[in-house]
């Protein structure tokens, strides 16, 4: 308390000089913060309460946009699709990310080769990946169904079938799990070896060691990745836009919140309505992040800090 209070007292000339120097160094951020963050944030909140066809000036509506959104079947569909995608892709990505990192952490020959292979998809431009996968999911001549035929599965139409389109997108999201693998691997390498050796001496088996030592030790990293992953999943856009020509087809089955928002703004030119959608997206992200922090409070181990 006292430290914080005294840091705000501009006691000496030196303090004032330091303040000026500090502010000068961060001045690009201050400018960007005001022009590219605060202003658009507030403006978008204001627009969300207006009728704003892009070529005319906004007219105040009150809560109408928000009320209409929850009567709009396409919006409700997009809400469902985004949630479905996030709750599918994030847990899967976390699971495979940790699993692969643990395997790589078990004194593997050719570690750097495996790591490179796992990581390559993560640096592949999203548009390129989307086009390749679009081609691979082709129900007639695509590689995915060809490979499935080897294990006796007659694959679905994937992106052509409303029931399977989201599953295809989730499968595709696992392809770029390499980024998380590298992060988890670094975290695993920081788990103290003494702890694992001590528990081996006490007779713990591998599963017990993973559950009681490894996972708690890397839990802050897991939490960080899950939060970043959820925020990204709710803004999932490029793949769908490229693979469905921006439509969210078939039958709106891949119409994500981001896609519908983009359509409202740049196809229907309803800037007010689109802003209301953006704010609901934002609130969902905030609520999910807060819930995750709450729930994880008991589960995440911060090394006694």
């Amino acid at each position, binding site marked *: 308390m006292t430290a914080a209070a005294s840091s705000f007292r501009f006691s000496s000339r030196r303090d004032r000089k330091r303040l000026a120097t500090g502010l000068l160094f961060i001045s690009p951020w201050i400018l*960007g913060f005001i022009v590219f963050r605060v202003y658009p944030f507030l403006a978008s909140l204001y627009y969300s309460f207006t009728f704003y066809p892009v070529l005319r000036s906004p007219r105040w509506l009150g809560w109408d946009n928000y009320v209409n959104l929850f009567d709009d079947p396409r919006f409700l569909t997009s809400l469902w699709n985004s949630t479905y995608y996030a709750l599918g892709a994030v847990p899967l990505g976390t699971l495979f990310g940790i699993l692969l990192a643990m395997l790589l952490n078990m004194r593997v020959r050719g570690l750097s080769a495996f790591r490179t292979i796992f990581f390559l998809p993560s640096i592949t431009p999203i*548009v390129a990946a989307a086009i390749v996968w679009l081609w691979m999911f082709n129900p007639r001549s695509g*590689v995915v169904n060809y490979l499935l035929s080897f294990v006796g599965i007659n694959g679905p139409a994937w992106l052509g079938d409303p029931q399977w389109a989201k599953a295809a997108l989730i499968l595709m999201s696992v392809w770029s799990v390499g980024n998380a693998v590298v992060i988890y691997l670094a975290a695993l390498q920081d788990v103290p070896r003494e702890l694992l050796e001590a528990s081996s001496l006490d007779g713990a088996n591998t599963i017990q060691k993973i559950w009681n030592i490894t996972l708690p030790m890397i839990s802050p990293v897991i939490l960080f990745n899950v939060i970043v992953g959820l925020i990204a999943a709710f803004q999932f856009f490029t793949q769908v836009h490229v693979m469905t020509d921006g439509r969210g087809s078939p039958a709106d089955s891949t119409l994500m919140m981001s896609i519908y928002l983009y359509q409202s703004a740049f196809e229907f030119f309803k800037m007010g309505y689109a802003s209301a959608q953006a704010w609901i997206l934002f609130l969902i992200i905030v609520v999910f992040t807060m819930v995750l922090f709450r729930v994880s409070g008991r589960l995440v181990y911060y090394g006694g800090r």
Partner: protein
Amino acid sequence: MTTSLDTPRDQPAVSTGEQRLLRPLGETSKYLVLVLFSAFFLIPLVWMVSTSLKNAEELPLYPPIWIPDPIRWDNYVTAFVEGSLGGYLWNTVVVTVPSVIGAVLSNSLIAYGFARVQWPGRDYVFAVVLATMILPDFVTFIPLYLIFRDLNWLNTYYPLILPIFLGSPFFIFLLRQFLMALPAELTDAARVDGASELLIFLRIVIPLATPALAVVALFQFIGSWNDYFGPLIYLSDVDKYTISLGIANMESAYGFSNFAWIMAATCMSILPIILLFFFAQRTFIEGIALTGLKG
């Protein structure tokens, strides 16, 4: 008596026998899983290269062909001639190079202000920087679009480049962590000698921060090179499209029968990133690990 004495000696013998059996099994299954996943990660890339070298007649065949016959290298020429790939690549360079310079310049200055200068209220302001990370681009893009429209900057590269010169919270965070870890004595001595903060920043801190700056440059390069959403909303002339938008445009404008050379264009769009990755693999891996761990 002898049997009861024998059992405790037998038990470890049995379990080591089990271990002798299980360990190679565990080893094998470990590599089996790794190889299976490697195949999963590699097949799309192999398929992309393979498709880029096919004849149009080979495209719809089932079962799919992995090694085209003959190998059509000229698809890569077609991508430049038909798909105006050269223009897209050049446009992307025009956007990416200033973006990388902007990111390194601005974020290093800002991070220095947060890490190496003690000023009152600094840590509160830094908390604000971190808080802005959660703000989705989808909340701000409509007002931003309208600002750039009113500035008459639509269909130019300014909206893609200029904001980067004002810093990004993620890079500020990353560089600040790095600069905080440098020993205080480094700069204190220079300060006692009366050097200005700018001089200390340029002469002492920047040379030491090169590894972290390389991470920022690399990530910004990839970010700008791969960006789709920015070019999508700000660029309207096909002549001005960057590579991501250009390839997506090829995919929707030319149909199925042109897929081979579209894949050739796609391969070309990835090539710079792959080359960069192999030259700077350590920087990559360390950078990614850094971003996840200090969070």
